[in-house]
């Protein structure tokens, strides 16, 4: 009897010590904190990352879905947990207490199950499906003047292909590929390709919709912009469009969310959201092409 109580007290103690003290101590130890080339905009912590999409677009539905679900889960778990602990205490084996084998009528549980089912149906039909439909089908129309670009993943880098001022992408093919100078394999003979922009940082204008076609050269990657709640596998042989919009300027991270080889963990890119003016300036300059590109044309 006594030893049982000791075990119980000891375990609570260990739990308190472990979860209460050791972990905050560890949490303060950020010795391994990395130093980065750029400062990220926004506040990151043990919660959802900042959401820079305009109100009313699908990334906010994603957030509210996550929020609502977790409230729901906590309520269920706590309610359920109270009953659980109550049973453990009230019906523990002891002198003079006997089990009662007559099956009880648990109407409450049936109602609870029905409520759960209805709530799930609501989340599914009310929130998830519209949001998903928005991700998949409600692409910005041309009247909204979206920015078009292509995202081509490769081990272990994100390549962004902009059509340049003429608005038309050059033809690309592996035949023209050159790792040093023409990483997208743009056809040098295609006039549309002359002003195309190849970048490894994603520049987008603020408050303008973007349509990106995701594809991959080699293995499956996953194009993920945490702050925009965008995640789309980049699958070789397929080309899958996504759309998004940012309403806050700054520097953000793009990550690769699908295991793609040894350097998967560091396959990150920078997303720079800037004012339309700044963006236009960058766009014009980039379209003139970096030096390597000129060299390439000289070689021809």
């Amino acid at each position, binding site marked *: 009897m006594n030893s049982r109580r000791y075990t119980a007290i000891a375990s609570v103690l260990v739990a308190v010590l472990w979860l209460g003290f050791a972990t905050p101590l560890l949490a303060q130890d950020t010795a391994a904190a990395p130093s980065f080339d750029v400062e990220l905009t926004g506040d990151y912590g043990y919660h959802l990352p900042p959401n820079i999409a305009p109100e009313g677009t699908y990334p906010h539905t994603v957030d509210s879905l996550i929020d609502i679900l977790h409230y729901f889960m906590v309520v269920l778990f706590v309610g359920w947990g109270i009953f659980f602990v109550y049973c453990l205490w009230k019906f523990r084996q002891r002198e003079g207490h006997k089990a009662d084998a007559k099956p009880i009528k648990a109407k409450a549980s049936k109602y609870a199950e029905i409520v759960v089912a209805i709530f799930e149906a609501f989340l599914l039909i009310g929130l998830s499906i519209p949001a998903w439909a928005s991700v998949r*089908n*409600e*692409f*910005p*129309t*041309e009247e909204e003047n*979206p920015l*078009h670009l*292509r995202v*081509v993943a490769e081990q272990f880098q994100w390549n962004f292909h902009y*059509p340049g001022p003429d*608005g*038309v*992408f*050059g*033809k*690309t*093919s*592996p035949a023209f590929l050159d790792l040093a100078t023409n990483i997208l394999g743009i056809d040098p003979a295609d006039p*549309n390709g002359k002003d195309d922009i190849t970048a490894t940082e994603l520049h987008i204008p603020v408050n303008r919709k973007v*349509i990106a*076609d995701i*594809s*991959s*050269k080699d293995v499956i990657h996953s194009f993920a912009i945490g702050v925009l709640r965008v995640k789309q596998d980049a699958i*070789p*042989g*397929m*080309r*899958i*469009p996504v*759309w998004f919009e940012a309403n806050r300027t700054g520097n953000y991270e793009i990550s690769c969310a699908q295991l793609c080889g040894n350097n998967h963990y560091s396959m990150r890119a920078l997303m720079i959201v800037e004012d339309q003016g700044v963006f236009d300036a960058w766009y014009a300059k980039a379209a003139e092409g970096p030096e390597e590109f000129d060299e390439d044309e000289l070689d021809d």
Partner: protein
Amino acid sequence: MADSHADISKHVKLYIGVFAALAGLTIVTVLASQVDFSGPGHVVVALLIAGIKATLVAAVFMHLKWERSGWIWWPLVLCAFFFVVLMTLPTLVATESRDRAPAGTWDTIPVREAPAHSGGNAESGH
């Protein structure tokens, strides 16, 4: 299923009959493949004939015709259902793969004529 000798010899006749049917159907399926059906006619005819043959084999040679045990039938029904699920895979994959790139390139196709998503780079293929 009955076990007496007379019954078994009746079976034997049936087996021979089924064999004749199978052989005949094999010839029919070969002949049918030479005929020029339009569209998916070939596939339908060939699979139909194969289906009949398979049914004959399963019903007679494998004795399903005489099988009464639910413990054999239910797993088979289950299996048949999941088999159908498996055979829907190609459609599932195909709906996702409509943006497949053409041979030899990873990305030169024009953007598909999606509902509300076209223009811009739509003409870029050429």
